[in-house]
């Protein structure tokens, strides 16, 4: 039995959330609660198995799983090295915590709402895990579509504005996916294979052909849209802002990172990044990333809504990953991967907190966060940790990804990128310390106060009411949350776990580097 589990680990990790998504509606027919718990159980098992898988890969090295016994390059292959295994742990972990976190939002909700949300969330996890695991470029497209479709649905669940944002994302996202599909069609035409490993062997002679060039350009655009790389980010701020608060952490934290990972896979594992043809595209990616880092941070400074500030900050942060890919070299790639991990945790943590504040007070406007730390000390502590990590204060996770990126840039002689990193993290400091000012110093108390503050509060409240319909739907917010803890335990768990994750990922980044090392050294 255990032998069977071990040998089928790669596929179990991906398929368990899928099974959860399928069982959830059926079980919800009998008990809504049991339906939700099913999804949590499946996601949890998937997380545990992904950890087992990571341990195994650090032991034995790469794992290749052949579906139905068909040998690659003819059959579909799941190909796992330490890089993908680490990301699988990250994705399934964040997914698992998200499923728990979402529980309070669905207490007392209709059956359809409950299982609808949970099934789709589970599907999203499945899609993301699949994209990371697969060794087949067409299979990657399939999982990309699963991810996108469930993403559209989860964003649309965020209320009227969510529907609009989701539609916009659907239009742009479909174009992105089409670019990717066309790209693989071109490459398939040139090499005659869809298996990544096989392709990497065959692509060499045709690397200079026009068709391959076009395919690569399509990949940059396709993945660029999916990861919201500047200037292809148009869909992202509204989508992250208006997504369902339970799913926003997973969407903002992980969904944008997996296409970035896929881009890294393509450039370095399928194509050979050291040739001049690929380097040209990397320069483009580098410029896009650097501009995005500045642009995203500047836009984030102008936001008044906590969520949209975080969304714009994500545009800047995905630039860090792109920058790492563009820097190339051991430390450049390492920085990109460490930043994928670190930033996933930071952004999920911040969105967990934003959702928690919204759950309790229905509040997302930062100027009305005044003195909130008195009511929600743990949440605010988590925000402080995550925000300091975003600014790059050591010894948190964000500092070390910056360290590796800067080191990579210095090794490659690309000093301009160090400059961009420095500017971007200073801009991060501007908007995060302004958030601190709002949280800790604003006298404008979140739940009503005197004088001009009260006037503004009422005014803002009316505006918020006009703007956001979902608040009205949230029973807990309407009634006012009355629990013993500052937020329901399920939410508190998510907030604390993600904040701890940031600290641990920072302190033990050397161990992460050690695990990731073999996979990255392979291509540099």
């Amino acid at each position, binding site marked *: 039995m255990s032998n069977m589990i071990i040998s089928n680990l790669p596929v179990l990790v991906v398929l368990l959330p899928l099974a959860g998504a399928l069982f959830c509606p059926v079980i919800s027919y009998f008990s809504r609660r049991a339906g939700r718990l099913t999804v949590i159980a499946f996601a949890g098992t998937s997380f545990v198995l992904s950890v087992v898988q990571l341990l195994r890969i650090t032991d034995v090295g790469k794992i290749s799983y052949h579906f139905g016994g068909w040998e690659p390059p003819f059959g579909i292959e799941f190909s796992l090295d330490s890089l993908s295994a680490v990301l699988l742990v990250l994705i399934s972990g964040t997914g698992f915590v998200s499923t728990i976190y979402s529980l309070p939002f669905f207490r007392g909700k209709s059956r359809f709402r409950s299982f609808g949300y949970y099934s789709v969330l589970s599907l999203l996890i499945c899609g993301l895990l699949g994209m990371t695991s697969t060794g087949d470029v067409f299979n990657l497209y399939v999982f990309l579509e699963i991810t996108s479709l469930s993403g559209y649905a989860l964003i649309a669940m965020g209320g009227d504005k969510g529907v609009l944002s989701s539609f916009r994302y659907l239009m742009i996202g479909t174009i992105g996916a089409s670019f990717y599909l066309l790209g693989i069609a071109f490459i398939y035409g040139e090499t005659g294979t869809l298996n990544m490993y096989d392709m990497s062997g065959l692509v060499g002679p045709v690397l200079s052909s026009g068709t391959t060039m076009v395919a690569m350009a399509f990949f940059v655009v396709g993945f660029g849209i999916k990861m919201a790389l500047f200037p292809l980010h148009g869909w992202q701020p509204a989508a992250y802002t208006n997504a369902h608060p339970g799913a926003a952490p997973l969407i903002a934290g992980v969904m944008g990172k997996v296409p970035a990972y896929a881009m890294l896979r393509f450039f370095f594992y399928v194509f050979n990044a050291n040739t001049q043809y690929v380097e040209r595209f990397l320069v483009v990616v580098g410029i896009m990333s650097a501009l995005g880092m500045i642009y995203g941070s500047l836009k984030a400074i102008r936001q008044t809504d906590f969520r949209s500030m975080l969304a714009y900050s994500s545009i800047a942060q995905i630039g860090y990953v792109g920058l790492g890919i563009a820097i190339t070299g051991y*430390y450049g790639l390492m920085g990109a991967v460490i930043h994928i991990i670190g930033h996933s945790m930071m952004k999920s943590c911040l969105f967990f907190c934003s959702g928690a504040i919204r759950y309790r007070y229905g509040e997302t406007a930062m100027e009305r966060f005044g003195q909130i730390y008195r009511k929600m000390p743990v949440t605010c502590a988590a925000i402080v940790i995550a925000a300091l990590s975003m600014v790059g204060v050591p010894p948190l996770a964000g500092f070390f990804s910056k360290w590796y990126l800067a*080191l990579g840039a210095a090794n490659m002689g690309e000093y301009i990128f160090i400059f961009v990193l420095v500017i971007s993290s200073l801009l991060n*400091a501007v908007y995060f310390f302004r958030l601190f*000012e709002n949280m800790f110093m604003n006298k404008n108390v979140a739940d009503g106060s005197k004088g001009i503050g009260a006037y503004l509060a009422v005014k803002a409240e009316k505006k918020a009411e006009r703007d956001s319909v979902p608040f009205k739907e949230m029973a807990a917010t309407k009634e006012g949350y009355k629990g013993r803890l500052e937020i329901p335990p399920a939410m508190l768990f998510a907030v604390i776990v993600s904040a701890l994750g940031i600290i641990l990922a920072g*302190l033990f980044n050397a161990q992460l580097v050690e695990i990731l090392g073999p996979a990255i050294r392979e291509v540099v």
Partner: protein
Amino acid sequence: MSETMLSGLLLSAVLIPAAAGIIILAVGNHVHRNVREAVTLLAAFAMATCVFSLVPAVLVGREASLTVMEIADGLTLSFKADSAGMIFACIASSLWVITSFYSIGYMRGHGEKNQTGYFAAFAGCLCGAMGVCFAADLLTFFIFYEILTVSTYPLVVHYRDSKGKYSGRKYLIYTLVSGQLFFAGMVYVYATCGTLAFTPGGFVDFAGSDKMLTLGIFLLMVSAGAVKAGVMPLHSWLPAAMVAPTPVSALLHAVAVVKAGAFCVIRLVCYTFGPEVLRECMGAEVLLWLAGVTVILSSLIAIQKTNLKARLAFSTVGQLSYIVMGVCLLTPAGMTGAMYHMVAHAFLKITLFMCAGAIFVTAHKADITEMRGIGRRMPVTMAAFTAASLGIAGLPFLPGFLSKMTIMEGARQAGQPVFVLILVASALLSLAYLIPVSYIAFAGTKVREEYLAYGPGNRGEASKLMLIPLLAALALAFVMGFFPDFGAHFYTFAKAAASSVYGGGI
């Protein structure tokens, strides 16, 4: 003492304040404020014990060191207690004890809000300062330097009003920007040299690269130290940060934060780049002149300030530049003097700030013009203020004298007589801005009416929780004036640090 014990002491010196900060936050006002304050005091005493237990070992040349963990690929989080670090650690830990008592007196006397956050952030700062003292390499140093930066922020904005917000922003802009420049420089150093471990005499060797590049990298990195040490034109956050409660100004802006800046300069000049490289690329020369100008200008500005804390702030700016100047003279005596001036200035300036705070809490006066005759009410406080003022000016038998003489000797060694003149001029200027305060306080005529009621037998002194700590700090300063090696062997340490960098005696 065994090696393990030494490294245990080293680690606990850094961890105790961090743990204390977390416990204070957790305890808060839930139990009783006395419990919370007990944590602060306990931690302060424990930390001072740890640091002072290291003194004998380091004194005989054993360098306690400890590698905690691999903190980044190929780099470790490691601590080492050398003579230079010991000086700073001893100052910071002993003054934390004194300030803790004073803080309690001040915060309660003044009925301050948010005291939990205050004491927690205070402990966080000390953790940063200890890490800075004992860091064995640049990365560890930077980690704790940033911790210090961030945990000082809540103290600066303590009053959480628009003024505090403004000062906080100013503080952050200066410190974070310079911190990032340091980061960029550090990355370059690591990429070129492959190591970051502090070595007496420096380890940087940009083989073949031109002088301008070395100069550029040095200036990038040293900006972090220069900002915290208030070297002009990067000083303006320091007077602004005086909106914080006085104990904060006392410990952080006279001791921990600004001294961390000065210490950063020392670590960079003497242990990273090294005198040879800096002499060649003129890096030290640039900083030397900036410091020289700062010494004079800040004194001139201080004379114009009528707010007592602002006057002291500018005095701090000037005095810190002595340290930077001494280091940048690139002579053994200059460095010894600079190291010893860290000690002298710490004890004297903390006394001055504590006096200012005592006046503020007891008589509610912040402006010098309102203090005419205050000596009738608070004779002990004002006497202490006068004594410390004389010490700052460099009167013999107070520690300021020895440090300044040594720096002058350093200037002579370096063949820069102009800095001897600057030192003398500045000593006179500091008399010019500090003695009028005492004169006004003890003036016999035109005494403000409110002080007339006071006289012998009817004083309105500050509470004992404030008065005793400030007298203790002053007493320590006096003892050190007569016995420079009293207690922590500061002068010996200063000389040892200098000879480790420059080789041989002074």
